[in-house]
């Protein structure tokens, strides 16, 4: 692998046409919110900059992030991201095994010191000296620290790497610990979700490898381009929330009409992710569209916030005096008032609760 090889060199060698390449750049630029100028900037960068090696490691996890990733809807993703941006090491799909695989790690670490991206799926368990996740005879946490030393930046894939996820749920038997609690001296980008959306993952990888830097992050370390929107605010069922029209049972008459799932436990009002805009499985749907509430899987601690099927009690959507039951019954007459009250309460909350879930991303 020559040091000056660019992304474009690689894809040309693989027989990808200039037309496909240009199309990939414009689509990706659009999905990253970079606009038309972004597309040509991207194309230029991919043609001139040496490609960035990516090392993809798996700790304590379920592989759902990889599964999401390889299912990306983008027609070129299989070429572009899987092979061309150089996934130099990936436990799940690579050819090498055993010591040979370990050698690839050592080689990349030395040859691309300070340049490679370390993408981590899963997290290290710290109890019993790391015995709950042994990789190549050593605790995963050691391998993680060793590879992080010379990485330029770390991508924390999914809820596990970002926050801990369900394996860190009480009593957290293995002391599963998010990456940023173990690696403290490297830039870390969190791409939470269980799993994250495929297009979000490819977007993040493409941005970093194209421009050689992390995209803008919010205060929690998530890329703003994908995590600045509240599910609730972009939800197609939102008008029914505002109108006080709610589903009461799975697949009831209200469900068939597409009413709001708030009373079924939807966590959309406290969750920041791109599900309601990018959607899943090729843009086909997302959990709320399937008639089930959002569980907030991209939020820190979503696994230990009470049952997933209880409604949120920390949002006051209809003003102080009303709750969903009361409003639902008389929806027709109070629609206007409810909308107004909601807007007012949201505005007040933004001002008064600087660190509340509604405003943490501002």
């Amino acid at each position, binding site marked *: 692998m020559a040091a000056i090889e660019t992304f474009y060199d690689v894809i040309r060698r693989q027989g990808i046409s200039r037309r496909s390449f240009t199309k990939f750049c414009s689509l990706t630029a659009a999905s990253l919110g970079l606009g038309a100028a972004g597309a040509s900037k991207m194309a230029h960068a991919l043609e001139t900059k040496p490609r960035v090696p990516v090392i993809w490691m*798996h700790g*304590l*996890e*379920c*592989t*759902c992030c990889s*599964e999401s990733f*390889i*299912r990306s*809807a983008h*027609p070129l993703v*299989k070429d572009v991201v*899987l*092979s061309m941006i150089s996934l130099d090491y990936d*436990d*799940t*799909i690579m*050819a*090498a*095994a*055993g010591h040979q695989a370990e050698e690839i790690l050592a080689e990349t670490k030395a040859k691309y010191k300070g340049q490679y991206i370390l993408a981590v799926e899963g997290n290290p*368990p710290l109890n019993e000296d790391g*015995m*709950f*996740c*042994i*990789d*190549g*005879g050593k605790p995963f946490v050691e391998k993680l620290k060793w590879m992080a030393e010379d990485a330029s930046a770390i991508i924390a894939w999914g809820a596990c790497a970002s926050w801990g996820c*369900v*394996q860190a749920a*009480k*009593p*957290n*038997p*293995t002391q599963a610990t998010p990456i940023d609690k173990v690696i403290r001296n490297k830039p870390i980008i969190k791409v939470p979700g*269980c*799993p994250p959306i495929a297009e979000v993952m490819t977007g993040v990888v493409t941005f970093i490898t194209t421009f050689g830097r992390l995209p803008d992050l919010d205060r929690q370390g998530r890329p703003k381009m994908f995590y600045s929107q509240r599910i609730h605010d972009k939800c197609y069922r939102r008008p029914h929330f505002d109108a006080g029209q709610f589903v009461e*049972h*799975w*697949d009831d008459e209200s469900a*068939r009409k597409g009413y709001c799932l708030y009373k079924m436990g939807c966590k959309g009002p406290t969750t920041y992710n791109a*599900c309601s805009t990018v*959607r*899943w*499985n*090729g*843009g*086909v*749907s*997302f*959990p709320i*569209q*399937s*008639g*089930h509430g959002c*569980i907030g899987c991209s939020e820190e601690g979503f696994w230990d916030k009470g*049952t*997933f*099927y209880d409604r949120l009690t920390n949002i006051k959507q209809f003003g102080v005096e009303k709750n969903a039951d009361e409003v639902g019954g008389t929806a027709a007459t109070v629609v206007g008032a409810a909308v107004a009250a909601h807007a007012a309460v949201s505005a007040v909350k933004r001002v008064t609760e600087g660190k509340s879930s509604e405003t943490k991303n501002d």
Partner: protein
Amino acid sequence: MTRTIVGPFNRVEGDLEVALEIEDGIIARAEVSTTLYRGFEQILVGRPGLDALVIAPRICGICSVSQSLATAQALRAAMGIEPAPNGALSAKIVHAVENMADHLSHFYLFFMPDFARADYEGRAWFASVQPRFKAVEGKAMGPMLQSRAQLMQVMGLLAGKWPHSLAFQPGGTTQSVDLGGRMRLSSLLAGFRGFLESTLFGVELETILALSSRQQLEAFVEGPGAGGDFAGFVRAALDVGLDRMGGFKGPCLSYGAYDGLFPAGLSDGAFALESITEDVSHAWLAGEPQSPALGETRPDAYKPGGYSWAKAPRLEGRAVEVGALARQVIARDPLISDLVATAHGSTVFARIVARVLELAKVQVAAEQWVEQFQLKHSFCLPSPPLDDGVGHGLVEAARGALGHWLTVKAGKIQRYQIIAPTTWNFSPRDQSGQPGPLEQALAGLEVGAAGAKSPLVQHVVRSFDPCMVCTAH
């Protein structure tokens, strides 16, 4: 005698190590070690019953639908209810799609790349197999992943998202289907059939389903099916001798799949669920052999004699093999029965053929299922609150028999035990010293001078399509 540890294994899900003792080029003893443990069975205790629908499937990002369905079935049993027929049908289709996608990725991403190893350079088939299947770079990967992603739009249509879908409930599915949705399902399945026929098999699926003996299979790969990827596998596998390797002589078990399309049963007798026990004598876990209905999970990281986080499930004290091969043996599929009869047991070859054959069988069946929705009827019936109850859910995941055992007391989960397919296949030894199926399949394998580096070890291990995160969970 040399003792070597093979691992970490790649192109398997999760972490796996296999310790091999090799004597004169033959594997004398194998110890299969599951090195990853998260403690789901501990985490689930004390939570409301329904929360298992969110937590339990997160054991595995590859067979999450199977996990969801086992959870929903266990809850349903504890509640004493039946699902809406539409919901059950929808779940069956999603489950079929997940299993097909799994079989496809196992074939293309996990199993075939081993034939592209330099060890096989110079073999007659190498020049045609290597460019298509070399890991990551192979030409077959791109179109396969694209077809697979398109097929999985079914998950979006019927379950909102995948992996870790939320639509599956005790009463059915939260997602209803309308006329447009049904048409899209049909067209997605038609698209997948196109891939199977043009690329994997090179013939119509019906031709594959008509194969009833090894002889016919061999004629097929030199005749009408010669251009398909499946033929590439058969040629390479027979040349390497995979039809004589990796055998397990014990019985096969299936819980039954898709409403009887593949029946439940044990290959050499009747099967009683009560005769399943889990043994922890060689696991880093404390306790005695116990039925999963009464089981417990207590980590003991430094237990003497332990070498795996996995328990050892046994049926009447016997190790059993599960998976596509087991399902087809119990379904008395003529081709698979012939392969198993001629080899006097399971083999690497038969396991892969069974998996690929299931792609054709399930695809054809799923095309019919899509037509069976009663669009105006409910997809999810109300379920009562679950305060106290006991139940289990048994499903066939792509990799084999999956069971969840649940006890709820006063609204909280008191016990939750899971036996995943790879827990069966990759179990460690039990207290009688009986090795697990993979351990038995590796013992006796002739690896020659290459020792543990022989690709044959990789073929045998991967023929079970291991899922290590499920194994110890």
